């Protein structure tokens, strides 16, 4: 018997948002098919540094982040317990070297505190007292939230997909979507392996690949790719080093539960591409930046480096909205902080599918904001 090529909803893209949407929709009884061109988490999700934070400067992101942090502590068990999610809460420390950065951090923390997120501002003396191994020369202060942390981005995505399958979702990996299809302004499905798949609703969660896919039904998405790099070190004794970021030079580092360190650094000269690739320049730049703050790591070895694409929008905020093509909705354009919003993204996808009132007002994420010139910049992005 040949497989039926229809569904209530088709999801295009098996990153964390697609996989979480499949899970939430399947749990609600929706007949859902997810197509992923490679393996689950193979795009931006699995390449992410996978920080979980509530440090944002816009209220809606803080509200969604609070929900994420409510989900993460029990998520491994909720998704069946087969995948180790490596969730930790070793905190998020944003260090400042300039007045401009410190002022911005203070504004962000004020937003967070107004929503009962336990963020605080720290002096260099307090930073040194809590994390004596850090070199605080030149630091003028920091923002810190002890609830924030880390999760394994690859097992997170795969666990959502695996749990969705157990609930009846069809998750088709190594199955690229060639194009979306629409008729008379309404979405009709997608073409996969030369065959038409039909569904009255299609959710686009393909990160930067969303843009060329949307174009196949005449929809212009302002989402572009930007390559970002990371490195991972050998495992050393865990000492719960928090995620430490610096807006002034774009560098960050943290220890993950197995003892390895991740280092990353923004570089505006990196190619604007979805292709992964590596440069020696990254290794030199990021180690110079991070070793200034963590001199004791100089003797630790780099195991490998990798890169992945951010899906960047003009205001560094996601696009979560129904599009002018009836039945087609998007959750993409997270601009580098999307992994941690998987739980929120999945829940919103389910609520939007059923036309329910969303648990957080997501009007700010609408697609038309770009035409209207009503951007809402997220100040806390890196």
């Amino acid at each position, binding site marked *: 018997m040949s497989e039926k090529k229809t569904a209530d909803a088709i999801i295009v893209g098996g990153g964390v948002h697609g996989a979480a949407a499949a899970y939430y929709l399947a749990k609600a009884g929706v007949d859902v098919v997810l197509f992923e061109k*490679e*393996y*689950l*988490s*193979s795009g931006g999700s*699995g390449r992410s540094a996978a920080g979980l934070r509530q440090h944002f400067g816009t209220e809606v992101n803080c509200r969604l982040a609070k929900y994420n942090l409510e989900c993460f502590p029990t998520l491994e068990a909720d998704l069946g317990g*087969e*995948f180790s999610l490596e969730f930790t809460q070793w905190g998020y420390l944003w260090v400042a070297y300039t007045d401009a950065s410190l002022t911005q951090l203070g504004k962000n923390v004020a937003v967070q505190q107004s929503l009962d997120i336990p963020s605080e501002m720290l002096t260099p003396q307090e930073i040194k007292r809590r994390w004596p191994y850090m070199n605080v020369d030149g630091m003028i202060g920091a923002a810190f939230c002890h609830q924030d942390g880390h999760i394994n981005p*690859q*097992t997170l995505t*795969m666990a959502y997909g*695996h749990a969705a399958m157990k609930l009846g979702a069809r998750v088709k*990996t*190594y199955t690229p979507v060639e194009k979306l299809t629409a008729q008379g302004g309404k979405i009709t499905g997608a073409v996969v392996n030369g065959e038409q798949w039909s569904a009255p609703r299609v959710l686009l969660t393909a990160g930067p690949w969303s843009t060329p896919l949307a174009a196949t039904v005449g929809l212009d998405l302002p989402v572009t790719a930007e390559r970002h790099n990371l490195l*991972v*070190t*050998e495992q050393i004794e865990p000492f719960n080093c928090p995620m430490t970021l610096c807006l002034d030079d774009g560098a960050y580092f943290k220890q993950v539960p197995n003892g390895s360190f991740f*280092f990353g650094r923004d570089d505006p000269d990196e190619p604007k591409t979805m292709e*992964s690739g*590596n440069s*020696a320049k990254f*290794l*030199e730049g990021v*180690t*110079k930046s*991070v*070793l200034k703050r963590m001199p*004791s*790591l*100089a*003797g*630790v*070895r*780099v*195991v*490998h*480096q*990798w890169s992945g694409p951010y899906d960047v929008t003009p205001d560094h905020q996601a696009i979560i909205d129904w599009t002018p093509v009836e039945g087609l909705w998007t959750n993409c354009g997270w601009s580098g902080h999307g992994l941690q919003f998987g739980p929120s993204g999945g829940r919103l996808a389910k609520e939007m599918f059923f036309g329910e009132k969303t648990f957080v007002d997501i009007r700010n994420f609408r697609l038309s904001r770009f035409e209207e010139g009503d951007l809402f910049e997220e100040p806390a992005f890196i």
Partner: protein
Amino acid sequence: MSDKQKVVVCRCEEITLDEIREWIAKGYTHFDELKRILRVGMGPCQGRGCKDIILRELSIATGKPIAELHPGTTRPPVKPIKLGLCAYGKEVPQK
């Protein structure tokens, strides 16, 4: 070889043959997937120890010749090098 015997396939992450077979049986039949689930190939040896064994298991399970299986991506640096060497181009004495 007895399946009951604890055979370590990936020494960096201490993953056994049983675990590899268990995840293949769950439907994860690509090296890239097993790598993300079990961290095989992500340790200091970068898959030099485990990859051939795992590809052979995948070949047996899927019936595809090893030459047709995607072996995952090998990433730089070729060998683990010290962070200090990347930053300063020389070894940094530790205090």
